[in-house]
């Protein structure tokens, strides 16, 4: 309790975050800014009535972390938002979207409402080795929305002694971000990872990446597929492409975990890279994270459009390295096609 309060009290209300929060930029009301959410968290502690507006304020945050990156006083607004969502959930205070996400994900093992076998994309089940040093954590979007990309990625990875989790379930990210309990999913994945004996988990999704790395027990080594492959470029015999592309840093991969170089290394070994208007630590959010795509699709779309305005002139593709970012950026109606970094890699393979 005191720890939570201290964390809220770290905020000096300087408003630095207000000037960068993309959600505030859209909505214009204090309650939609990071500072507003910090205040509301304090308000709840002091007895502020929890109504629909409170829930909306807290749940409109994409957890992009830009506020935290810029916060001079070292406050952790994202953690405060997530903790407050959780606290309210435990008291039965939640939005419909939070409820649906929780129930779907815990009952079906994915937040998409899918019921078929997760690895249906896989041609030959025999490719799932019982023991291996590396595990490819596919993720829900990879499994159900981008099966073709996932198949190709795994075809590439399996040459390097990589296996899959046979009964993989959602990593738990959508639950953690929106205040629900991910424990049953975490244990199910963990048990299998232990059985496989892997020392490293590879994933192609920024949400899975940050969750596996920061919210799973023990110290799993987690790397993004771009990091894994960036180390193996010489073995892949790539051709140079006469293309110019730009790159969207997924918040939960870049800013929150510092993975900036590997995707760029892959891109620049294939073609020319022209950065978006904001990039690396300052990169704008695609607008999908933190349950916002599910709960506030219009807001999420507006955020996506803003990000797309940052595409530089004269590029052929917008490359990203997270299926959720890709999905939302595609929704925003981009002027160039949005592709995954593995798609670019495929184009360059002889």
């Amino acid at each position: 309790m005191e720890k939570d309060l201290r964390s809220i009290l770290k905020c000096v209300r300087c408003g630095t975050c207000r000037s960068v929060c993309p959600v505030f930029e859209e909505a214009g009301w204090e309650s939609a800014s990071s500072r507003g959410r910090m205040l509301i968290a304090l308000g709840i502690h002091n007895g502020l009535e929890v109504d629909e507006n409170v829930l909306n304020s807290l749940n409109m945050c994409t957890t992009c972390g830009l506020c935290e990156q810029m916060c001079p006083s070292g406050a952790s607004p994202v953690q405060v938002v997530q903790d407050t969502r959780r606290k309210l959930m435990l008291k039965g205070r939640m939005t419909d979207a939070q409820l649906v996400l929780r129930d779907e994900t815990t009952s079906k093992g994915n937040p998409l409402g899918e019921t078929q076998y997760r690895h249906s994309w896989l041609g030959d089940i025999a490719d799932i080795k019982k023991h291996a040093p590396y595990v490819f954590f596919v993720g829900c979007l990879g499994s159900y929305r981008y099966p073709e990309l996932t198949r190709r990625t795994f075809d590439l990875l399996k040459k390097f002694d990589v296996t899959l989790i046979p009964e993989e379930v959602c990593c738990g990210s959508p639950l953690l971000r929106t205040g629900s309990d991910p424990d049953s999913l975490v244990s199910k994945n963990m048990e299998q990872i232990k059985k496989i004996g892997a020392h490293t988990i590879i994933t192609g999704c920024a949400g899975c990446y940050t969750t596996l790395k920061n919210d799973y027990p023990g110290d799993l080594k987690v790397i993004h597929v771009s990091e894994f492959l960036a180390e193996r470029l010489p073995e892949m015999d790539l051709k140079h492409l006469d293309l110019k592309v730009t790159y969207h840093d997924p918040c939960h991969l870049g800013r929150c975990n510092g993975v900036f170089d590997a995707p760029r290394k892959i891109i620049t070994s294939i073609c020319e890279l022209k950065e978006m208007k904001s990039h690396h630590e300052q990169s704008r959010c695609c607008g999908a994270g933190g349950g916002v795509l599910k709960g506030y699709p219009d807001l999420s779309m507006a955020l996506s459009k803003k990000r797309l305005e940052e595409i530089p002139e004269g590029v052929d593709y917008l490359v990203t390295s997270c299926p959720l970012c890709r999905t939302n950026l595609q929704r925003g109606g981009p002027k160039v096609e949005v592709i995954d970094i593995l798609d670019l890699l495929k184009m360059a393979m002889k």
Partner: protein
Amino acid sequence: MLNVDLIEKMGNIVGTENISVASCELYCYSSDASQIRGMPEVVIKPRTTAQVSDIVRLAYEHNIPVTARGAGTGLSGGCVPLEGGIVLDMSGMNRIVEFDLDNLQVIVEPGIVQEKLNKALEPYGFFFPPDPGSSAMCTIGGLIANNGSGMRSVKYGTTRSYVLGLEIVMADGKIIKTGSKTMKTVAGYSLTDLFVGSEGTLGIITQAIIKVRALPKERSVIFASFKTPELAGKAVVKVLSSGIVPSACEILDSNIIRALNNYDPKLNLPQAGAILLFEVDGSEAEVKEGINLIVKACEDLASAIRTASDKKERDEIWAARRLAGAAISRLDPVRTRVYVGEDVGVPIKEIPKMLHKVDEISKEFDLPIMTYGHIGDGNLHTGMCIDMLSDEDWMKLNAAADKIHRTAIELGGTVTAEHGVGSARSEYMRLELGSALDVMITIKKALDPKGILNPGKMGV
């Protein structure tokens, strides 16, 4: 007071999407960056001068308090509605109405953020010089209302020097224009000057004619390290009396240095007792001469002097310096920076004495006080961090702040050099202003007879 009927009328004026009575929204508008609190009854986001006028007229008819708000980064409770009523969130009126650069001016709405204005001016080779630490977030309206300034005020002066004219909605809803587009005018009392620094107590600013300056060709930054803040204070007096006018002259004490290195480890500032940051701008020759003069003036007092290597290093140090005040919260996980007693100003000659007194106060109350600020114009920020959950810390903090304020006044200084009086410092107005405060009260009564504009502020 406010009732459903009135709220509906207000909604009709600004559109229902621009008005809120949601309790969490009101809560978010109940504070700025100071410790002052006050709950509004309604928050309104006007889009036009006509809307502001209609709302204020309605408020006037019904005796409802109206408090203007920019970005709420103020450090004096200026935008906090002490007596409830309406908060007018002006941040949505943020257009640049006219670029008139041949006349060295722009016309802006008050909600535009300082940095956004400067970004828009940069391609044309111009800038609006007052640069507070909060430039990335504070509005021009807030700066005008507080007569804010910043690191470059030692050379370029305060916001006041850049306001040629204003459009104001008066307490009864009437719209007036003050000043003109000319570089000078003596037609009538300088009402523009009256409204600059009036903290929303005399009228609501809805437009401003802002003078801009050509961007200097060159800038250079010098870091001078000293064993103690007092030695640094002496160096400042020496530099300024040597005839050079630096475009910035900032002091950072050892705790602030530690906080900044923590915020941005790339900075790698030397861990001295105090650092002075000087900036010189102008033509290449002027900058060269300025640097030489500063180095000469500091030589005997400083333990080390060096110049920033390039624009990148310069930009980084200024970006970090801007947020130094908040960054000191990082030094201790259980302590938070509290902006109280943080903005005194003293005559330049008294700077070393003030620094010495601050040190004594720090010892007396056993409370670390970190000093930084625009020392070149005598403005010192005294940063105190406390355990927000300790009553004893709060008591020490308030007592130390009170002593700092009184000391500044005793030295012929002021309790607020740039952050404004608001309600945080209104109790010192009589002491500092004497019977001049009565004149302020008379003006306030004449312009706002019902006392609806930002009541409870500035001691009026």
